[in-house]
C-alpha cells in the first residue's frame, strides 16, 4: 500500500502540467460552493428571505455546474495519461493494482482540493459577506460562523464528483488497448467535408432568431416567441460553428493567393482539422459567454437603476391609499391623530382618479396597455386640487394644469381624443400621489365638469407624510390593525412604508447582482479553463508538426505568429460571436429592463463595461496560453 501511495504521489507530481489546471478547477469550484453555503447559513441573513433564496439557488447551480465542469477537466487529464497508465499495465501491474493506484491518486487529489478549497473558501467568505452587505445596503455587523452544514455538504457533493470521475477514469483505462496506445494516435484523419445543408440551416436559423429578437416589441406578451428566438440562435450557433466554420476555411483554402502565405497556410490547414474536434466546444463556450454577458450586464444595470427608481417612487416616507370608500377622510384624521406629538412633516391628502394607460406624444388614452408607451395617469379635479392644497386656481373647460415627473414639453394634451391646452405646469411632486411603476407618470388637473364627460372609475384617496423610520412604522402598523368596516364593504387600503420597501428593493436587486456576479465568475473560469486545456493538449499534439515545420525552414518568429494566430481564433471567435448575439438581443433586453425602471444609458454603460472586462480577462489568459503553447512546441 505504501508503495502505491508513493507511486500515486509521484504520478501527480510528474504530471504537474496536466494537473495544475485540474487543481485550479477543483479548488475554485469547491471554494465557490463553500462560500455560497457558508454565507447562506450565516445567522445574520436569517429572515432575509430573498437573499437566502438566491444563495440557495446559486448553490444548486454551482453544484450542478461543478459536476459537468470537473468531469470535463478530469476527462482531459485522463485522456493525456492513458498511455502512461497503460504502460504500468504492460510492465506487469495487474488491473487490480492499477485500480488501487488510481484510487489512491484520486484520494490524494480530493484531499488536496477539498482542504485548500475549504480553507480558501473560509478566508474569502469573510470578504464575500462584506461585499454582500455593501450590495444590499445593510450596515449591520455580519457574523460569520464556521458552518458545519456548509462543510459537510461541500465534502459530500465534491466527494461524489471525485468518485464519479474515478469510475470514469478506471473504465477508460480498462477499456483501452495498450498496444494501440503505445503506438500513439498518428493515424491520419480525413479532411472534413463541407456540409452545405448544415451551413445553410445555421445561417437561416441564426438570421431568423435575430429577426425575431429585433421584431419583438412587447416581450411580456411574446414570451414564447422570445424563447423561439433563443433556441433558433442556439441552433444557428452550433450549426455555424460545426459546419459553417469548415465551409469558411475551405473557401479560404480555395483562394490560392490567400492560402499560400506562411501564416495562413499552416493555420488554415491546422484549423480545418481542429474544427472537427473542437467546434462543439467552441459553440458551448460562445453560449456560455453570451450567458455571462447577458446576466452580468442586466443585473448590473438593474442594480444601478435602483437609485433612479427609488427617487421616482419613494418621495414620501409613509403613504396610505384608500380606494372604493365613501369616507376616506376618516383615515386621514386617524393618521393625523397618530402623528400627534411626533416629529413629522408634509402630511397631506389628495383624492384623484388613477389609471394605467398610454402616453403617446401628446395623446393620452386610459386603460390602454400599450407596452411601449405605458404611463400612470392621475386625473384630479380642479375643485379637489384647490381644496386639498389650499389654492385658488381656475380653468376653462378646454384647459388643464399638468404635472409630469419626466418633464412634458407639449403645449397641448389630448385625453381620450379630446384636446386641451395646458395652462401651466405644476411642479409639486405631491400630485404624483401613488407610487408608480410605469415609465411615464403624469397628473392632469381638470375641471370637474370636463371630467364628467368621461366614464370615470371610483376615486382613490391618497395620504402621504414624511417622518422617521420608527414613526412611519408605528403609524402604518396602527392603521393596519384598525377596524375600518365603516369604510364600506368594497374598500381597499394600501399602506406603504418606504423605508421597508427600499430595504426590500436593495435586498432583491442586490442579491440578483451578487448571484449574477458569482455565477458569471464560475462560467467564465470554466470557459477559460476549457479553452486553455484544449490549447495545451493541442500543443502536445502539434509538437511534431512544428518540429517538421522548423526543419523545413520555418523561423521561430513564424512559429510564434502561427501559434498566436491559431490561439487567437480559438479564444476570440466565441467571444466575438457572443458579442454579436448580445448586440441583437440588446433592444429586447433593454425593453424588459425599461419595464423594470432601468434607463438606456445605464444599460449601455453596464453592457460595454462587461464586454470590456471580459475582453481584458480574455486577453490576459490568451497571452498566457499562447506562451504556454509556444513553450511546448519550441524545440
Amino acid at each position, binding site marked *: 500500500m505504501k508503495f502505491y501511495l508513493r507511486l500515486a504521489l509521484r504520478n501527480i507530481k510528474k504530471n504537474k502540467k496536466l494537473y495544475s489546471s485540474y487543481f485550479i478547477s477543483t479548488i475554485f469550484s469547491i471554494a465557490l460552493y463553500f462560500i455560497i453555503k457558508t454565507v447562506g447559513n450565516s445567522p445574520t441573513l436569517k429572515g432575509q428571505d430573498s437573499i437566502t433564496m438566491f444563495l440557495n439557488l446559486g448553490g444548486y447551480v454551482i453544484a450542478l455546474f461543478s459536476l459537468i465542469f470537473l468531469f470535463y477537466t478530469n476527462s482531459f487529464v485522463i485522456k493525456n495519461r492513458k498511455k502512461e497508465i497503460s504502460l504500468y499495465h504492460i510492465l506487469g501491474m495487474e488491473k487490480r493494482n492499477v485500480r488501487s493506484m488510481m484510487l489512491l491518486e484520486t484520494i490524494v487529489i480530493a484531499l488536496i482540493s477539498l482542504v485548500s478549497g475549504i480553507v480558501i473558501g473560509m478566508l474569502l467568505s469573510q470578504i464575500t459577506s462584506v461585499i454582500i452587505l455593501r450590495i444590499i445596503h445593510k450596515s449591520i455587523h455580519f457574523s460569520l460562523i464556521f458552518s458545519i452544514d456548509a462543510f459537510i455538504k461541500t465534502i459530500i457533493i465534491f466527494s461524489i464528483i471525485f468518485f464519479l470521475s474515478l469510475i470514469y477514469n478506471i473504465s477508460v483505462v480498462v477499456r483501452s488497448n495498450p498496444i494501440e496506445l503505445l503506438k500513439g494516435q*498518428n*493515424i*491520419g*484523419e*480525413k*479532411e472534413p467535408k463541407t456540409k452545405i445543408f448544415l451551413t445553410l440551416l445555421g445561417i437561416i436559423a441564426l438570421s431568423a432568431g435575430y429577426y425575431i429578437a429585433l421584431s419583438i416589441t412587447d416581450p411580456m406578451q411574446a414570451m414564447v416567441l422570445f424563447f423561439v428566438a433563443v433556441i433558433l440562435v442556439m441552433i444557428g450557433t452550433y450549426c455555424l460553428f460545426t459546419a459553417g466554420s469548415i465551409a469558411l476555411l475551405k473557401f479560404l483554402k480555395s483562394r*490560392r*493567393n490567400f492560402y*499560400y*502565405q*506562411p501564416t495562413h*497556410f499552416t493555420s488554415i*490547414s*491546422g484549423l*480545418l*482539422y481542429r474544427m472537427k474536434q473542437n467546434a462543439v466546444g467552441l459553440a458551448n463556450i460562445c453560449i456560455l459567454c453570451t450567458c455571462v454577458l447577458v446576466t452580468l450586464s442586466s443585473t448590473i444595470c438593474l442594480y444601478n437603476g435602483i437609485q433612479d427608481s427609488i427617487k421616482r417612487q419613494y418621495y414620501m416616507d409613509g403613504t396610505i391609499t384608500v380606494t372604493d370608500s365613501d369616507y376616506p377622510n376618516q383615515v386621514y384624521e386617524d393618521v393625523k391623530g397618530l402623528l400627534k406629538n411626533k416629529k413629522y412633516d408634509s402630511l397631506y391628502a389628495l383624492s384623484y382618479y388613477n389609471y394605467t394607460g398610454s402616453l403617446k406624444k401628446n395623446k393620452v388614452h386610459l386603460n390602454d396597455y400599450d407596452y411601449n408607451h405605458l404611463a400612470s395617469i392621475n386625473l384630479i379635479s380642479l375643485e379637489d386640487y384647490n381644496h386639498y392644497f389650499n389654492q385658488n386656481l381656475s380653468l376653462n373647460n378646454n384647459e388643464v394644469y399638468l404635472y409630469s415627473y419626466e418633464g412634458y414639453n407639449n403645449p397641448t394634451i389630448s385625453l381620450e381624443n379630446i384636446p386641451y391646452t395646458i395652462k401651466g405646469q405644476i411642479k409639486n411632486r405631491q400630485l404624483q400621489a401613488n407610487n408608480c411603476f410605469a415609465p411615464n407618470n403624469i397628473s392632469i388637473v381638470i375641471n370637474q365638469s370636463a371630467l364628467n364627460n368621461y366614464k370615470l372609475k371610483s376615486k382613490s384617496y391618497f395620504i402621504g407624510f414624511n417622518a422617521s423610520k420608527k414613526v412611519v412604522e408605528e403609524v402604518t402598523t396602527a392603521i393596519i390593525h384598525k377596524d375600518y368596516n365603516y369604510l364600506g364593504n368594497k374598500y381597499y387600503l394600501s399602506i406603504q412604508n418606504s423605508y421597508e420597501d427600499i430595504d426590500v428593493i436593495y435586498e432583491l436587486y442586490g442579491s440578483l447582482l451578487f448571484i449574477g456576479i458569482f455565477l458569471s465568475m464560475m462560467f467564465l473560469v470554466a470557459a477559460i479553463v476549457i479553452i486553455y486545456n484544449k490549447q495545451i493538449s493541442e500543443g502536445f499534439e502539434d509538437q511534431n*508538426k512544428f518540429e*517538421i*515545420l*522548423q*526543419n*523545413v*525552414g*520555418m*523561423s*521561430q*518568429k*513564424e512559429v510564434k505568429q502561427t501559434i498566436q494566430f491559431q490561439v487567437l481564433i480559438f479564444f476570440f471567435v466565441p467571444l466575438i460571436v457572443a458579442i454579436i448575439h448580445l448586440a441583437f438581443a440588446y433592444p429586447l433586453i433593454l425593453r424588459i429592463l425599461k419595464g423594470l425602471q432601468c434607463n438606456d444609458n445605464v444599460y449601455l454603460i453596464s453592457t460595454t463595461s462587461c464586454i470590456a472586462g471580459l475582453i481584458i480577462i480574455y486577453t490576459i489568459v490568451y497571452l498566457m496560453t499562447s506562451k504556454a503553447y509556444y513553450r511546448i512546441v519550441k524545440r
Partner: protein
Amino acid sequence: MSLLNVKHLQKIYSTRFSNQKVEALKDVSFDVEEGEYIAIMGESGSGKTTLLNILASLDKPTSGEVLLDGKDLTKISDKHISAFRRDNLGFVFQDFNLLDTFNVADNIYLPLVLSKEPYALMKPKLEKLAKPLGINHLLEKYPYEISGGQKQRVAVARALITHPKIILADEPTGALDSKSTDQLLSIFDQIHQSGQTILMVTHSSKAASYASRVLFIKDGQIFHQLYKGDMSNQEMYQAISDTLTMLLSGGQ
C-alpha cells in the same frame, strides 16, 4: 573553391546537472566539391547525427567552422538562419517528416510558401519535379493515404523544389523496404547525375555504395574515406564492407 568546407569541428555536450562532458565531435574536417555525392557512415554514437545537425544549422559547434559557398553557417544569426536553411539546404529525413494536415502538393509547396513565393511561380516548379519522381498522380492525396516509398519521394520533391545548394539526407532509406530503397537510391543517383550535391548519412552499405565518396566516422573523428572512382556499385559495396569490418575490429 569547394562548395562546402568543414574545418576542425568540435562539439562538446555537457549535461545540465553534472560536470561530465561528452565529446561528440573531436576534430572533423573535410571538403565537399560541387556535384559530389557523399555518404557518411558510422556506428550509433559515432557522432554522425551531430555532424549532420551542425551541417543543417540546427545545432552549433563548440568550435570550428562550416563554410557553404564561403559563408560561415555557424556565424549566421538566429533571425536569418531559417531563411538561409530554406534557401540553401534541402532535407530528406528517415521518417519523411510530412505533415498529415497537408496534401502531397501542399507538403511540397511548404518551403516555397515559407519563402513567400507567389502561387503562380510555385506551380510550374512542382509540375517539373513531379513527373520524374513518379508522384504526379499523388498530388491531391494525403500522406496517410500513400506508401512509405511514395512518402519519401514526396519528401525528396520538397527538398528539391527550392533548388538547394546541397541536399542533406538523414538515413533516407531507414524506414523503407528493399524495393522502395532501390527506387529511392536510383532517384538519388539521377539527381546526382543532374549535378545536384548530396550529403547523406547512412547505416546502410548498400545506400553508401551509390555515393561517389564515403566518409567513415568513429568516435567523433573522420577515420577513413573511400573514393568510388570507376568502381561499380558492387565493387564499392565490397570495399565499404571491408572498411566497416576493419572499423569494427578496431584495427588500422
